[in-house]
């Protein structure tokens, strides 16, 4: 999406990215970025939380209007879970002794299916 924003902007259409993967978007380098520090999936606000969605989309418009140079990042003043702010960060793509074997097995199975696909197999 970052590459797309760059190209659309180059075509003369101002862009703002509203997203939760800060490092990916900032490494790519986009004109304007509203960072929403939430688990991936709801960058425009929690499902059915209209007030929060208004806050975030309103900020996105502010960034669109107010940024005066590229690579502008603004962080939305929202917190996913006051009581467990680090829990969701740890759980996403977790790798540990509790699941290392399962991940290796899943990877091997995926490669088997991919190889079958490339050789025209059906399994």
């Amino acid at each position, binding site marked *: 999406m970052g590459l*797309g924003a760059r190209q659309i902007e180059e075509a003369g259409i101002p862009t703002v990215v509203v997203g939760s993967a800060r490092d990916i978007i900032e*490494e*790519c380098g986009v004109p304007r970025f509203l*960072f929403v520090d939430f688990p991936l*999936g709801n960058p425009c606000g929690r*499902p059915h939380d209209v007030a929060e*969605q208004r806050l975030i989309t309103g900020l996105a418009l502010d960034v669109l209007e107010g940024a005066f140079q590229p690579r502008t990042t603004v962080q939305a003043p929202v917190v996913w879970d006051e009581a467990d702010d680090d829990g969701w*960060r740890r759980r996403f*793509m977790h790798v540990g002794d509790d699941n290392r074997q399962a991940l290796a097995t899943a990877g091997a199975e995926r490669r088997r299916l991919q190889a079958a696909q490339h050789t025209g197999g059906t399994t």
Partner: protein
Amino acid sequence: MTERRRTGRSHVSYIDKSREYYAAHGYEQPYAWAANDDAPFAPLPKPLAECKVGLITTAYFLPDGFVYRIPSDLPRTPHVAPRPEWPQLNTKHLSWAKDETHTDDPESFLPFARMDEWVAEGRIGSVSDRFYCLPTQFSHRKTTRRDAPQVIEWLREDDIDVALLVPL
């Protein structure tokens, strides 16, 4: 919001996490993410209150009867669709935090109703009746040579002045 103290950065590094996660799956070659020192910048062509906004998502449509097995099965192609079709968007096979949340409310990633409110309040001029799907691709080339030029063509057809891009 409460004040906190930390001994490390708070935000997740998805570049680091995904590298470790896929290494644990046996993929030794890490994904090479796009990285740039500079970025383009186009000023607003007119006041925001007169601008037509286009909404762009990384979600996309799947053919009827599609059966998912592995990521390389997914037909990641750009789409343009009329707004009433947005609830049919596929988000199931995209990579987001399925243990923490859900995408049952499209407003959480493709905020048409919120944009309607901003139009009614005079904050923006209008919102496009169509939306644009720019899928996340493994290949940078597919994005830059095929998908983004296609989306730009649709944005121009619809006289879009500014674009709001929301990656899931």
